[in-house]
């Protein structure tokens, strides 16, 4: 009898109205998020081989892969020591530095683009100094890399900082007491233990750089083969070559999904951007 009553109560709970409303909302949201991707996929599947392998598509793909990878490597080289210092050292003005490094993540890309122009443009802050050396950055492939680094590097710094911060300092002290130098300790203890966060940060940075649009188009322009990355090619393709745009869009969807999935698998606590 008691069991029967309990079952009845459980059945009621399962079908109570609050739960139904919640499930309904969740399904609606999931549908809303999936529908555009589904629509895109349905259009991309029947595309002919020339849409996927057209010269324009391949040029954009190649440029995107190279610039995003370069931006990620720059973030790795410069961001790692920065992240380590932010995780380990206390200094005056640290909250300010922390915030400044995060700003590009929330900044509208158009603002990033105009800010980069003001800094490195021909009439920007450093423009005259650079032109003395014969360097002109805007509207070059280098400008694409700079724009992508500016927008995407904070993702790596945040993730790496969290990773270094989570390494127990007792382990580093223990390593020291066993006679191992601080330098070796970093590579044998700190780095391996922070590695999952570093890798997930690199993946996020790469994905963000790959998708960069606003800052790139303002600071580097939209020149096929030189500064026209995939998102820019999609934008142009809407008017001239929709098939190619669809193919590139589909590639970006798949890449994003794979990256997020891989980053989640790397990070022990699931994906966090903090």
């Amino acid at each position, binding site marked *: 009898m008691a069991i029967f009553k309990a079952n009845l109560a459980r059945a009621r709970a399962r079908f109570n109205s609050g739960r139904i409303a919640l499930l309904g909302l969740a399904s609606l949201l999931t549908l809303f998020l999936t529908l555009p991707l589904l629509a895109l996929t349905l259009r991309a599947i029947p595309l002919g081989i020339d849409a996927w392998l057209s010269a324009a598509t391949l040029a954009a793909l190649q440029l995107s892969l190279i610039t995003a990878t370069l931006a990620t490597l720059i973030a790795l080289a410069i961001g790692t020591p920065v992240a380590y210092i932010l995780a380990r050292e206390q200094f005056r003005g640290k909250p300010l530095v922390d915030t400044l490094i995060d700003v590009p993540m929330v900044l509208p890309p158009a603002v990033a683009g105009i800010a980069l122009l003001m800094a490195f443009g021909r009439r920007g802050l450093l423009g005259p100094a650079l032109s003395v050396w014969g360097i002109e950055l805007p509207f070059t492939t280098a400008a694409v890399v700079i724009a992508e680094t500016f927008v995407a590097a904070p993702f790596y710094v945040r993730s790496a900082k969290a990773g270094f911060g989570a390494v127990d300092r007792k*382990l580093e002290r*223990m390593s*020291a007491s066993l006679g191992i130098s601080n330098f070796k300790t970093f590579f044998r203890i700190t780095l391996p233990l922070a590695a999952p966060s570093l890798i997930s940060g690199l993946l996020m940075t790469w994905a963000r750089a790959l998708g960069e649009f606003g800052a790139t188009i303002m600071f580097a322009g939209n020149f096929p083969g030189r500064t026209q990355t995939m998102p820019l090619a999609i934008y142009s393709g809407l008017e001239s070559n929709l098939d190619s745009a669809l193919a590139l869009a589909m590639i970006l969807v798949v890449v994003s999904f794979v990256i997020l999935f891989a980053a989640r698998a790397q990070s022990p606590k699931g994906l966090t951007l903090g």
Partner: protein
Amino acid sequence: MLSIQIHKQFDAFALALELNAPQEKIIVLFGASGAGKSLTLAAIAGFVTPDAGRIAIGERVLFDAACGVNLSPQARRLGMMRQDLALFPHLSVADNIAYGLQNKTRAARAARVRELLALTQLENFGARNIAELSGGQQQRVALARALAIEPALLLLDEPFSALDAQTRVDLRRQVKTLQQRLRANIFFVTHGLGEAVWLADEMAVLDAGRILQMATPREILRAPKTARVAEIIGVKNILPAQIVNATTLRVGEMELRVEPHALAPHARGMLCVRPERVMLVRPDSPNAERGNTLTGILLDEESDGDTVALRFRSDGARLQPTRAFDLQIDVPVYVYERLNLARERHWRVALKPQALHLVTL
């Protein structure tokens, strides 16, 4: 000779520690939390720099403020083992043990690891992950890792306090055996009196950053130097006393016979009586009339399962007239039951002179 002098001033705490101990022994630093034990270890290991002092193991000087010597933690070659172990979670058992041997050849490293795995009875665990091991096994890995570098001194910081009682006793025994086999210098820090007494060749009682007494554990238990030491080592009865003559004290309203001491008449001191050394005698027992006895009642009791702590109050002359009771008496549970103490509350207690220890103020 292990020679340690450390002076370090903090805002609200000062460490002022001086300690000389023989080598190849287990030295136990015993004290409550907050006494400065871990700070002392950090200073010896080189993670905290004293304001003044000198730390030397035999001829080898690790720190000397006067000469400006301050070896880095790496250069001190001390093995450390902490309560939280700090094992490297991304390395196997064997790699953890080999960690401090990075400048040795691969073959020498492997041989040393095999030796230590055998020594700590972990022969088949070399390839395991740390997380797969039990608490006791992890402790043994931490011990093996510290021993691997053949430390000049092994620092053990409450290494067993997170373990269950049985594992703790096993490991304690292993540490003692290993120490005797390797003739290692061990500096062991603990807040457990039983552990301290069990392990120590020499025991230092630390309180508020100072060493109050250093001696063999037997000596400290038998004759604590001050009332504070007596309190720290669990002497429950510490009574103000006045000297009458070389063998007699006045305690409260009573005169007690004690073993001969060197204090002058009228001097004041504290009488320490371990609660387990108070004897219960039946009130009608014929040989109870030999002085140092009180007749009274058992007021109440507390038990931890092994021992019952009884509070006794004299009916006649009192030892502590201002308090509710005169003595705490500890008896094992089986004695409590055997004597039927739950029912029979009227007793005579005897304080034998050899159970009484007098300390100066």
